[in-house]
């Protein structure tokens, strides 16, 4: 059905376009007047009146067809009295029989009947689908063609349709975001109906081990998210200790000291760092950095665990260097040249100019860059899953195992668990808190950056 409906719609598009164009040409020829819009716009107008109804029919069929057929089947099904039915299973059985996936041997007569009915309904539906899509395309085109005349401003109308199309597309992204937020909120509510908000936010014990199956003996789980957030912040701080100075100094070098040539080469190279998949950083952290951290810890007499906050943080720091350097570089570059000249003109040298004039002027933007990098670091998953561990330790020692919010979400969602136990649901609560944190960081960062921009533009 998919292939042929595409072909049908393409034919409709083509012929309605030709139809519209020939119509307006004929009108121009017979009246000898200049049309208000060009031929193409009239043709596009007819085309959109052909395409849009066809798409509506197509999608409503795709959405409702199966539903309606199922209802019809279930309504006319010859139920055997006294037998218990699971509608889902029953429908699956009927469909299998109809599609010859399952041999009909040994199936009861009423199922075979229903399967035959299903088949015929499906056929009717397909035929009526093709007929209605053709009719609707023809009707749409005819309606549009009737509206075409010399005076008709097709260009404006098309412009309007394009605007609607753009609005539609952008609203998809917005609506999806809203949907995700709501699903997060609802699932979190379910979690908080089983675990108190107070415990979640302030308790320092995170043992999400609860009986997975009914009747299984297990300790009561406890869901204090403090160690998880502490772990997240520990990893983030280690990462920022690496990324902030290196990124900022790189930015200063690139924007103030490097020649155009160097800048043009180094900047894209740095941005490649941002393109490396984070899982690659993850195994780099696990295979190379973590053992190094462990042996380094031993050499200075600290017992380091094989996966540690330090290993994950160091690699994450490297990952976010390009964020900081690239954004700060842009910010420093947008400090007006006149300030540099003003400072140098007084006889300040380059370092003084950077330290006392450029950096203070660029500070809000740099802070914005840092905040964006932090929210990136907090939301990062793969590196910490691989290199930081999963034990929820409340510790400030970066050589120890810690766990982060994202890791715990992964842990909570893998494996087969029922979807209504608090362990699984805790993923949503953690996700919600994480979302709130990164969102507010982003908003703060954007506001700072924007305020800064206004000052100079």
């Amino acid at each position, binding site marked *: 059905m998919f292939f042929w409906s595409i072909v049908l719609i393409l034919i409709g598009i083509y012929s309605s376009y030709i139809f519209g164009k020939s119509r307006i040409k004929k009108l121009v020829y017979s009246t000898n007047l200049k049309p208000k819009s060009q031929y193409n716009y009239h043709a596009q107008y007819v085309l959109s009146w052909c395409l849009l109804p066809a798409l509506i029919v197509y999608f409503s069929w795709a959405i409702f067809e199966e539903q309606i057929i199922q209802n019809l089947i279930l309504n006319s099904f010859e139920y055997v009295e006294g037998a218990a039915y699971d509608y889902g299973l029953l429908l699956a059985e009927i469909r299998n029989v109809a599609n010859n996936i399952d041999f009909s041997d040994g199936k009861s007569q009423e199922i075979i009947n229903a399967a035959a009915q299903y088949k015929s309904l499906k056929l009717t539906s397909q035929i009526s689908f093709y007929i209605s899509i053709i009719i609707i395309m023809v009707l749409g085109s005819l309606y549009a063609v009737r509206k075409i005349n010399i005076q008709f401003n097709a260009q404006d109308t098309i412009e309007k349709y394009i605007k609607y199309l753009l609005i539609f597309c952008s609203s998809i992204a917005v609506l999806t975001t809203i949907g995700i937020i709501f699903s997060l909120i609802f699932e979190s509510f379910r979690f908080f109906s089983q675990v108190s908000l107070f415990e979640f936010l302030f308790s320092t014990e995170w043992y999400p081990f609860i009986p997975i199956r009914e009747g299984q003996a297990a300790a009561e789980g406890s869901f204090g998210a403090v160690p998880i957030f502490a772990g997240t912040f520990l990893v983030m701080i280690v990462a920022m200790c690496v990324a902030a100075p290196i990124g900022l100094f790189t930015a200063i070098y690139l924007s103030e000291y490097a020649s155009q040539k160097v800048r043009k080469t180094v900047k894209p190279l740095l941005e490649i760092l941002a393109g490396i998949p984070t899982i690659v950083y993850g195994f780099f952290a696990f295979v190379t950095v973590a053992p190094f951290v462990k042996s380094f810890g031993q050499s200075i007499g600290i017992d380091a665990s094989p996966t540690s906050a330090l290993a994950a943080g160091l690699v994450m720091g490297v990952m976010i260097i390009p964020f900081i350097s690239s954004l700060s570089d842009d910010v420093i570059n947008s400090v007006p040249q006149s300030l540099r000249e003003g400072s140098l*003109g007084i006889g300040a040298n380059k370092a003084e100019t950077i330290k006392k004039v450029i950096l203070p002027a660029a500070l809000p933007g740099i802070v914005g860059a840092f905040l964006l990098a932090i929210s990136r670091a907090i939301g990062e998953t793969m590196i910490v899953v691989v290199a930081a561990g999963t034990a929820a330790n409340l510790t400030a020692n970066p050589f120890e195992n810690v766990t982060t919010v994202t890791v715990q979400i992964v842990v909570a969602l893998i494996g087969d668990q029922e979807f209504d136990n608090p362990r699984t649901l805790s993923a949503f609560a953690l996700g919600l808190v994480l979302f709130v944190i990164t969102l507010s960081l982003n908003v703060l960062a954007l506001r700072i950056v924007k305020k800064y921009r206004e000052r100079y533009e």
Partner: protein
Amino acid sequence: MVENNNTKISAKDVDVFYSEKQALNKISMDIKEKEVTALIGPSGCGKSTFLRCINRMNDLIEICKVTGSIKVDNEEIISSSTDVVSLRSKIGMVFQKPNPFPKSIFDNVAYGPSIHGLADTKSDLENIVITSLKKAGLYNEVKDRLNEPGTSLSGGQQQRLCIARAIAVNPEIILMDEPCSALDPIATAIIEELIDELRLNYTIIIVTHSMQQAARVSQKTCFFHLGELIESGETNKIFTNPDNTKTQDYITGRFG
């Protein structure tokens, strides 16, 4: 008018290239001490480029190459061994658009003295700031709000703040690159009056697009055209009886 014959700046055969393009061609001129010299000419004639040679500001432009000789107090400055920092502390500069730093009014003026270590104590620094603001004719307007950001001032005040910032490091020469082009007529009149006062203590070179301004504030005028110095001399003479027909055409508004 105080006449004097001490040459402060002496340029000889100055050529400037931006990559391949020649912006200045064999410029030679002498600039006298404690006088206002105006550089005039149509846009793109090289007058700002010449101005920026004097404090080596063209160093900031990677593709810019300066040859020839400019002597300030008989010392060659177009040379790789020139101490650019001390040169620039001797030569203040005021730019086309007021460019106060995003700091307080006080810190804007205190910036130069503190990086050059001109003040030993806090009260010394305060003295320098206040004197400079007074010399720039701004002190009375801002004395109650020295801690407010310099960017909060009006355009004309900002420009005078920049002048105060420049004279706070005790320069001998002040370069002004169209200092009034972003200002309204009233602010312009105040700045012009200020330039007239500053002339007593500083050698001033001003680039301007306004011929009236050149006539009002300067004693000497140099007319640039297409990278060449066409004519230079007493302002009175240039504006009343120029030798060169191009100068004549320009000042009478026939081109440019």
